[in-house]
């Protein structure tokens, strides 16, 4: 609290030049609020006024559920029967009650009820979870003014417009509030808006001066006022309204508005009036309805269903026409049918009626073409797949205890087809923590600890050089094994080292300047000066940690914190800040005793993204006025004096190295000022500051500019933005898997670029294309300019000859707003697709969603969005797959997501292993399903041709019922759940395998039609072989001929065998489960026949004792089964063996390597292949290492050719 006051005073002080000048209410008059869109009236502290119309606004209850108790049944049923196939089965079920049905009604209704019931139960469960989450939010407590200045707890859902609420530190705001006052005297408060826009820095909000006195509970006894403002809208950054109090009208602007779902930080409490509640609040207005997503395969499946429907319709029409013709012309002769005695269904006199009626029968009879069980099986398979994802121990985060979670199982296979990943930055890629790693002072580089990129590059070089040595000397490569160190191991060892340095924000290591050793260095003065710059030039506040006695710092940005920690470790501990001074304890002084020094702060020119620098002007204890400046290197270098360029060359070199190593850099400079010079400038500055009008900012900038020149460069710092664990490796692997990664962040451009560097999305030598909007009022001009930039950049990319050249596109939210308009987005997308990496900064949540939609719809490829905050919700919902990072505070992203993982790095396994598997499983499973149903369904049709198209089925009803439910479904499910083309390790080692998904190798029309053709072939073989074998001859020694039951059963046996052998051929991974299910299905069939043959003949009819008495003793039955099974599968067998031999796919070869155990025998080859098994990528860690190697090799080659002593180095390649 006390600290807060100090800080508040500080804020009000003259130091804060740019951001903190309060626009006084008198400056600009109240807004003229009238007309449509500005109708909201809020009676402050009189919530009762809002109980009646027209002031009755929406309650603060939020609901994100799809259904409620009343709407669940109709809505969910509608959803279910939205699916074509379900609708068809509904129709079939209704008709099945009539005599038209070729089957019994139960056999039609039961499967449908099961399918729909299962799906609806799943929906209900998911919605229930959403409901519970909503309830959790709705029942949060907040202090609300009850009466007579008394505050009491109320649930969020009961908060009403006009209520006065008191929000305490680290609480979320329950609704959109007007800030009245805060624990600070001047009514400011700090707000974290991470859930809204993803920005992590705190934002300052300030109350109106007139409401400042209301900073106690009692003050609200008689407080009233009226707010007139805009209607609810989704715009986060604008607010227009007036506050009428005490017969005066004051204008309100966004800086008085506290938005729901943002958080109060560093402020003990605030008072506020509720303006927008519940779904009226800006954050809820921003929320888009969560769409129900369907995977690509499922959507394609619909088309296949349509195709099958057409086939169904065609054969049904053929049947019914055939039936009508037969009925009209032939049936009168068939006296044994008593044609004169018929009802309408078989009336030769009304062939049309009979034909139409028969159409219905035929549609139902051939319904086996449309696999109703496909949906059930897919649901079951997906749920099981999802549970495997949930249980994967390697995606379990031990720190937070969060496993990966498939929140909807609809999209498992979509994970295997992702083409573009759109990632949030803060909280997803980074932990928002900076580590001071290196610095360059007075032209000398300090800091020996290498960055991740450097380490890996060195290792890779070592391997390659050693390779070449071996090749040249043709010596046995025994050493090789030990030296082959993977990037992973390099990086993990780095992680272990990190654990050893316990100081947060500091991983610097260099004995030359640590522990006071810098005294022994040359240029002690410069070193000291640069440390002082680090310790003084900032806006942070120190905080004494009572337990350890050391100071921690509350800085606006984590970089600044890292600098202060570094300065502290170097012996320049910043420990106190007053309104006008900064105090520093210097541990290593000339005397050897710690000395406290005071630096009087004269001016502070703050950091803005436009200025890219920060300057303080201080007076030291000797009275010397110093200007200390830190900023982006380019900015500082432009402002150096002639004699300040002593270290310029060395520092530039170091800065480039740092940049290459993925570090974010700042240059440090200073300037000594004469008293007279300073006071002259200060007058100017004060004048500019007190000036009133629109151009105040420009004036201030101009004046600041006057002072920040003639600087003397002292050095540069390099800070490593702490990425989350495993992020670079993960990005690397994903890039190798051929995925494109876009970063969409609410952060500043510089931050975003730096992160781009540290996670290897950007690297030195990559051409950066920045698209920026010129500041101009005319929209046309701006757009034209942007369009020109885009065209130019596209041209540049087209003309680029170097195959290794990579481009990065960086674009800002403001520009994006223009670019995303309809007339320009295609050009933008074209450019973005050509670039290796795309970074969008300062984007709003809505823009994130829009960009996602653009990528999704523009490229037609699968997109995955990953994020952790509420600001990512839009994008998560918009993308084909949304992934939320769980384990952070806000759960909004997770709630909106389809999958949640605890850390970004788990994305690799989720996509490359589970995605790959699920994609192949579902694709194969669906293909097989169509095969199976075509093979079965068509035999019914062929048989029709032999029955005069009368609609008789050759199979017993029970066989048909069991076909999909028991006899063939379990093996398919085992295919869908357990199939693995290669093991998970191999998936990770060969990320290139992932491309099978995005290229859709396993579910293209070629393959689907192939499977359908296979089904057609099988149906022909099964039907006609059986018919010819059994049709008129005695089939056993007893002389009996086969009747319909015997033939049907024999045929069905063949079907069961053929289909199950087919699936066994399709699989490549047999655990005991597969064996059990496949061979068990066949055994089940015989068991069923046995049991069915034993029940009373009134139930089993002609199937009574059929196996025991008729079929089993007949050798022809068994040999026919064998023949048909082999004949059905022989072509497929030939196909796969020829395909494997002559056009092997990636996974075939890896399977073979594994099969021959070559990976064990020749692990060198294995390692080499692993390192090569990746898509040629231009981003990621490996690409970066490659680039570095290319560069070094180029240097080496130049050296060699000039010396001409050594034979030229050939790049190590294995044929």
């Amino acid at each position: 609290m006390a600290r807060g006051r100090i800080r508040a005073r500080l804020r009000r002080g003259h130091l804060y030049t740019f951001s903190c000048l309060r626009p006084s209410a008198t400056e600009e008059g109240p807004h003229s609020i009238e007309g449509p869109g500005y109708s909201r009236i809020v009676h402050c502290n009189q919530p009762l006024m809002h109980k009646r119309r027209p002031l009755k606004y929406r309650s603060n209850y939020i609901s994100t559920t799809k259904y409620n108790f009343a709407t669940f049944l109709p809505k969910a049923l509608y959803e279910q029967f939205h699916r074509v196939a379900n609708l068809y089965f509904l129709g079939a079920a209704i008709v099945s009650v009539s005599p038209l049905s070729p089957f019994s009604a139960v056999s039609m209704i039961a499967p449908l009820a099961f399918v729909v019931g299962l799906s609806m139960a799943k929906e209900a469960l998911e919605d229930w979870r959403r409901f519970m989450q909503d309830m959790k939010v709705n029942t949060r407590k907040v202090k609300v003014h009850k009466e007579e200045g008394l505050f009491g707890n109320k649930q969020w859902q009961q908060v009403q417009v006009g209520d006065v609420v008191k929000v305490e530190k680290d609480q979320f705001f329950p609704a959109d509030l007007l800030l009245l006052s805060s624990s600070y005297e001047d009514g400011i408060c700090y707000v974290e808006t991470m859930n809204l826009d993803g920005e992590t820095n705190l934002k300052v909000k300030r109350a109106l001066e007139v409401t400042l006195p209301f900073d106690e509970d009692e003050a609200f006894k008689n407080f009233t006022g009226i707010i007139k403002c805009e209607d609810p809208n989704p715009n986060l950054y604008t607010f227009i309204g007036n506050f009428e109090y005490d017969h005066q009208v004051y204008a309100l602007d966004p800086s008085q508005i506290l938005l729901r779902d943002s958080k109060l930080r560093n402020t003990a409490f605030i008072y506020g009036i509720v303006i927008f509640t519940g779904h009226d609040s800006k954050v809820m207005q921003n929320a888009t309805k969560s769409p129900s997503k369907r995977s690509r395969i499922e959507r394609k499946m619909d088309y296949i269903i349509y195709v099958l429907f057409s086939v169904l319709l065609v054969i049904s029409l053929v049947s019914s026409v055939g039936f009508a013709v037969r009925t009209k012309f032939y049936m009168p002769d068939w006296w044994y049918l008593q044609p004169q005695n018929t009802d309408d269904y078989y009336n030769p006199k009304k062939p049309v009626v009979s034909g139409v009626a028969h159409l219905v029968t035929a549609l139902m009879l051939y319904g086996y073409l449309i696999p109703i069980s496909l949906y059930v099986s897919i649901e079951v398979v997906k749920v099981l797949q999802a549970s495997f994802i949930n249980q994967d121990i390697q995606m379990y985060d031990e720190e937070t205890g969060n496993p990966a979670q498939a929140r909807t199982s609809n999209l498992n296979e979509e994970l295997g087809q992702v083409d573009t990943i759109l990632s949030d930055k803060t909280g997803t890629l980074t932990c928002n923590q900076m580590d001071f790693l290196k610095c360059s002072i007075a032209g000398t580089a300090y800091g020996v600890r290498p960055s991740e990129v450097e380490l890996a590059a060195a290792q890779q070089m070592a391997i390659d050089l050693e390779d070449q040595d071996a090749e040249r000397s043709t010596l046995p490569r025994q050493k090789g094994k030990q030296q082959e160190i993977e990037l992973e191991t390099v990086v993990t060892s780095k992680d272990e080292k990190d654990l050893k340095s316990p100081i947060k924000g500091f991983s610097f290591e260099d004995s030359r300047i640590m522990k006071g050793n810098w005294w022994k260095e040359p240029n002690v003065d410069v070193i000291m000066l640069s440390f002082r710059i680090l310790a003084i030039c900032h806006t942070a506040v120190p905080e004494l940690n009572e337990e350890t006695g050391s100071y921690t710092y509350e800085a606006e940005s984590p970089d600044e914190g890292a600098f202060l920690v570094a300065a502290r470790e170097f012996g320049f501990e910043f420990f106190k800040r007053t309104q006008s001074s900064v105090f520093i304890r210097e541990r290593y002084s000339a005397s050897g005793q710690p000395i406290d020094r005071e630096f009087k702060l004269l001016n502070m020119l703050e950091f803005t993204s436009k200025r890219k620098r920060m300057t303080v002007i201080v007076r030291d204890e000797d009275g010397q006025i110093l200007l200390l400046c830190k900023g982006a290197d380019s900015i500082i270098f432009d402002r150096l004096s002639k004699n300040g360029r002593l270290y310029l060359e060395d520092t530039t070199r170091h800065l480039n190295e740092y940049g290459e190593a993925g570090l974010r850099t700042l240059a440090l400079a200073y300037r000594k000022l004469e008293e007279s010079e300073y006071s002259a400038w200060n007058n100017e500055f004060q004048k500019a500051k007190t000036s009133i009008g629109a151009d105040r900012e420009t004036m201030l900038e101009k004046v600041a500019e006057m002072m920040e020149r003639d600087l003397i460069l002292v050095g540069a710092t390099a800070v490593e933005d702490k990425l989350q664990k495993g992020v670079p490796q993960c990005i690397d692997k994903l890039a190798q898997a051929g995925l494109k990664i876009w970063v969409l962040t609410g952060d500043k451009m510089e931050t975003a670029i730096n992160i781009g560097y540290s996670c290897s999305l950007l690297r030195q030598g990559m051409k950066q294309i920045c698209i920026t909007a010129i500041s101009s009022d005319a929209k046309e001009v701006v757009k034209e300019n942007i369009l020109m930039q885009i065209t130019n950049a596209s041209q540049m990319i087209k003309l680029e000859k170097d195959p290794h050249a990579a481009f990065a596109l960086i674009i800002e939210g403001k520009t994006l707003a223009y670019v995303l308009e309809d007339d320009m987005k295609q050009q933008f997308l074209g450019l973005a697709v050509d670039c290796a990496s795309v970074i969008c900064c300062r984007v709003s949540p809505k823009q994130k969603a829009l960009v996602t939609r653009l990528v999704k719809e523009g490229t037609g490829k699968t997109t995955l969005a990953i994020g952790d905050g509420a600001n990512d919700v839009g994008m998560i919902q918009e993308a084909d797959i949304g992934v939320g990072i769980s384990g952070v505070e806000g759960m909004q992203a997770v709630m909106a997501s389809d999958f949640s993982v605890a850390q970004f790095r788990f994305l690799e396994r989720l996509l490359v292993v589970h995605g790959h598997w699920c994609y192949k499983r579902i694709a194969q499973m669906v293909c097989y399903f169509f095969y199976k149903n075509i093979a079965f369904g068509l035999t019914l049709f062929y048989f029709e041709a032999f029955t005069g198209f009368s609609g008789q089925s050759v199979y017993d009803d029970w066989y048909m019922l069991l076909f999909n439910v028991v006899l063939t479904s379990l093996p398919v499910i085992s295919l869908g759940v357990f199939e693995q083309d290669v093991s998970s390790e191999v998936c990770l080692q060969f990320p290139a395998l992932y491309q099978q998904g995005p290229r859709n190798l396993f579910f293209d029309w070629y393959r689907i039609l192939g499977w359908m053709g296979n089904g057609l072939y099988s149906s022909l073989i099964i039907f006609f072989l059986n018919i010819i074998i059994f049709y008129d001859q005695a089939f056993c020694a007893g002389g009996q001929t086969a009747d319909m039951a015997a033939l049907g059963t024999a045929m069905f046996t063949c079907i069961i065998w053929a289909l199950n052998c087919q699936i066994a051929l399709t699989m490549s991974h047999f655990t005991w489960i597969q064996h059990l299910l496949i061979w068990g299905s066949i055994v089940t069939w015989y068991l069923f026949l046995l049991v069915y043959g034993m029940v009373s003949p009134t139930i089993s009819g002609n199937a009574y004792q059929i196996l025991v008495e008729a079929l089993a003793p007949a050798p022809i039955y068994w040999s026919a089964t064998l023949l048909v099974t082999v004949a059905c599968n022989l072509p497929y067998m030939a196909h796969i063996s020829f395909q494997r031999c002559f056009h092997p796919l990636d996974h075939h070869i890896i399977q073979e390597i594994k099969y021959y155990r070559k990976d064990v025998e020749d692990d060198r080859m294995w390692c080499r292949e692993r390192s090569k098994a990746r898509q040629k990528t231009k981003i990621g860690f490996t690409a970066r290492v490659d680039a570095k190697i290319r560069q070094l090799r180029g240097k080496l080659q130049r050296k060699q050719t000039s010396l001409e002593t050594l034979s030229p180095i050939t790049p190590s390649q294995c044929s």
Partner: protein
Amino acid sequence: MTNTDRERHRERETAFYLFTQQRLPACKPVLTPAWVITIFLFTGFIFIPVGLVTLRASRSVVEIVERYDTECVPEPFRIDKVSYVQDDSIPKNCSLSLKVRKYMKAPIYIYYQLDNYYQNHRRYVKSRSDRQLLHGWKYHATSSCQPVEFNNNQPIVPCGLIAWSLFNDTFTFIRERAELKVNRKNIAWKSDRDHKFGKTVYPFNFQNGTLIGGGKLNPRIPLSDQEDLIVWMRTSALPSFRKLYGRIEEDLDADDVVVVHLMNNYNTYGFGGKKKLVLSTSSWLGGKNDFLGLACVFVGSSSVILAIVFMLLHLKSRRPYGDPSYLPWNRKSFSG
């Protein structure tokens, strides 16, 4: 908990763990050339002998087929065969003489074969009542038997179109003036006789209506003994079918002449169906059926051919299996 119990528990836990992590031990067969060739050759070596054996069995069967539907209508009636067959006043006697070409070993099966007869028509197939056949007319819910359900408000036993259209041609066989002994017992499945057709169910009100279909049944013999009916009630799968009529339990020598006296009662003229009489011996495999053997030989030989083709192709453009140079990223055409 004993030690073994604990161990077993741990085992189960690890098995479960392996299951959830999808790491269960698995066999991962790969179609290597050795396997492919082995499988194809093996298939061939199974199927060709099987085919040959089957073919041999089928060839050993002697079969005599005689169509009689036209011959058995006397010349003057051939213009209107339907009225001939429907006219009860005209005797339907007819004689055929069959020449035995090859020695036929008993039992010789007698079949009648009907063509273009849709016994598999849905209207026909449905028109029966299994319950009535078993329980007799005590069982009333025979709506499935329509249109042959009631006659003069009396239930018909057996009801339905199938029974109503019972085949009623009869055959007697004479060799050298001596009647051949024809066994007409046990021509139906035993289970049908014992469990499907009631032992106490007698035909009732059968073929009593204005519309007379096929054969009549002796009302004093229970259904379980009416084997012709039982055979007939097993509807055939195809419109052309044979049904067992009886067995000749004497051998027939080559060049024997068998005279068949038949009653040509059954009306196939209305729908132009053929009627045939078939005498056939049987092998262990059943009747004469060359197709199965031929198909087996065909499949077997194509699989051998496949094996050879594969072997040759593999030798010609030999791809060393498990050779990483065939991985896509090692191939030239690969573009990332």
